[in-house]
């Protein structure tokens, strides 16, 4: 049986006056049914663009999917007509956006926004859609759903709005939900609640989840599989355990080091990743991480390493990946 979602060699580029931005530069990954896959990386590394590419929501112009294939349940999404892709959006693949404050339309009631998807995709009549909306609000843990339906987004707190967004994503029982930094705009306790909720609902309903985040803590707890992205490429892939316990790419290692830890002395300084992410318009032959890398060797400037296995199911794109494995050694 083919996997639920199979992205193969995807290139998404933005053609701007400053040059071609290679936002997604040949990524491939697979999402199995019911699985939670994380995509991690810092801002501007192409995480969101790769997610938007799946639903073909890249603004064109200036952006375009130049090459590659995205197969969803055996269908090639890049070859669907505009009409056909609209039936996939929201119906089979739903999306939860980053900013719950601005992802709901301020002038429409919660009820209208929830039922619109239902009447649109499932041809429900108003009463059935309303009943389903009530059920969904209850499911995502919103109290007094009957009253909430008549309220506007500004009546709700950020956490509740994100719950509404999740309810909207779930309403057509999609096969896959893409959550683009679903908790970034929320405070820490609410973040945990929302993530718990998403994890539990997707598990109960057998929905696969792609979760895009720069928060490694999120990854550790909630993802079955992790893809680490840097400069438009996936540079390491593995289970959460692989990534945490034996990172095989200097970037992942640097990211992990930069997270403040509870078990370190309080005076310990944070160890940030030095430098800036590269300019995606001027990538050369070599590894894009080399200016910031502590393990750089001559070969890094000449050739960009491919994603190759270091162990079963654990891949890394680094020439020095074997040196990194095992007990962590500090480079001079």
């Amino acid at each position, binding site marked *: 049986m083919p996997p639920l979602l199979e992205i193969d060699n995807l290139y998404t580029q933005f053609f701007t006056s400053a040059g071609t931005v290679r936002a997604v530069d040949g990524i491939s990954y697979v999402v199995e049914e019911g699985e939670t896959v994380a995509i991690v990386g810092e801002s501007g590394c192409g995480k969101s663009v790769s997610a938007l590419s799946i*639903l073909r*929501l890249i*603004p064109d*112009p200036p952006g375009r999917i130049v090459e590659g294939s995205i197969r969803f349940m055996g269908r090639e999404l890049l070859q669907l007509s505009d009409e056909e892709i*609209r*039936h*996939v*959006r*929201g*119906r089979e693949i*739903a*999306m939860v*956006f*980053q*900013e719950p404050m*601005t*992802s*709901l*339309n*301020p*002038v*429409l009631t919660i009820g209208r926004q929830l039922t*619109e*998807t239902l009447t*649109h*995709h499932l041809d429900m009549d108003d009463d059935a859609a309303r009943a389903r909306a009530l*059920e969904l609000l*209850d*499911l*995502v*843990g*919103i*109290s*007094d759903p009957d*009253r909430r339906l008549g*309220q506007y987004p500004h*009546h709700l*707190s950020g*956490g*509740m709005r994100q719950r509404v*967004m999740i309810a*909207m994503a779930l309403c057509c029982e999609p096969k896959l939900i893409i959550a683009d930094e679903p908790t970034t705009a929320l405070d820490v306790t609410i973040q945990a*609640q929302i993530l*718990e*909720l998403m994890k*539990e*609902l997707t598990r*109960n*309903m057998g929905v696969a989840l792609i979760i895009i985040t720069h928060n490694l803590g999120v990854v550790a707890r909630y993802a079955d599989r992790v893809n680490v992205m840097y400069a438009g490429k996936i540079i390491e892939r593995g289970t959460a355990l692989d990534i945490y316990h034996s990172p095989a790419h200097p970037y992942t290692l640097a990211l992990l080091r930069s997270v403040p830890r509870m078990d370190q002395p309080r005076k310990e300084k944070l160890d940030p990743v030095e430098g800036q992410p590269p300019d995606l318009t001027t990538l050369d032959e070599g590894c894009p991480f080399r200016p910031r890398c502590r393990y750089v060797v001559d070969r890094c400037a000449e050739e960009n390493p491919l994603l190759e296995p270091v162990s079963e199911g654990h891949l890394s794109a680094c020439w020095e990946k074997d040196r990194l494995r095992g007990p962590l050694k500090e480079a001079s």
Partner: protein
Amino acid sequence: MAVVSGVPVEAGLEQIAPAKPWHAVAIDLTRRYPLGTGGAVIVVVMIVLAVFADVLSPYDPEENAFEFMLTPPGYQFWMGTDQFGRDILTRLVYGARTALFVGFSCAFIGAFTGLVLGVASAYFGGRFDLIFQRVMDVFMAFPLIIMALAVVSIFGTGTQNVIIAITIPFIPRCARVVRSSALAIREIPYVDAARACGFSDARIILRHMVPNVMAPFLIMISAFVGQAILLEASLSYLGLGVQEPTPAWGLMLQGGAEEYAESAPWVAIWPGIAISLAVFGFNLFGDALRDALDPKLRSQ
């Protein structure tokens, strides 16, 4: 499907202030916008006069009565009669009908067309936006009255053609203003969220974006009604608008101004006052509407 356990439900439903009764809101607004209220009163009086014109006035607005030619204002004819003996007050009241009909038709058709085109232009962006805006630029390059004159000279005179002539120059003006608001809205994630829900472009434009540009749109409409009334009067005055014997303010002004400015000034003065008052009323109302709908001004 069961309720998810272990997820603490956010406590505390915030209290929502109960809606005020409408008359309390009206009194509140009157106090804050006295000028706007004045404008609204003028507008409402005009509408009432226009609607009940045939009930209010005992005279026929179009039939000549040569025995009463150019009677000065007095007990029988409050505002006097014109050169054909028709009661000026009656003609003013019926003229309000023409003015409002033309004003509202032009403002609504022009503004709605501009609204949809402007939002669509912002939504699609790119080349469509560029070309569309250049076409609008061409229309905007003509002064309103010149544009209207051109249209009337092509289609001919008459109420319907006057409406077309005035509507066409309104479209780019509204489209431009609405587009600038819609451009900002285009970048807010809920538009992307709507696209991610699989809604069609038309649905996103009409149901998700249009309601969000209502504030500038309503202000445009109220300003357009005043402008349309003035334009209709101008065209009629120039003989390119509504034709005799239909009562229209511009026409009455023209008929009175040329020959009777000295001998019977009331023939021209009353329609002139009516035009000024109507435009003044709509502009005051529009101004107050802008202030009332602008959240930045409201908080002060």
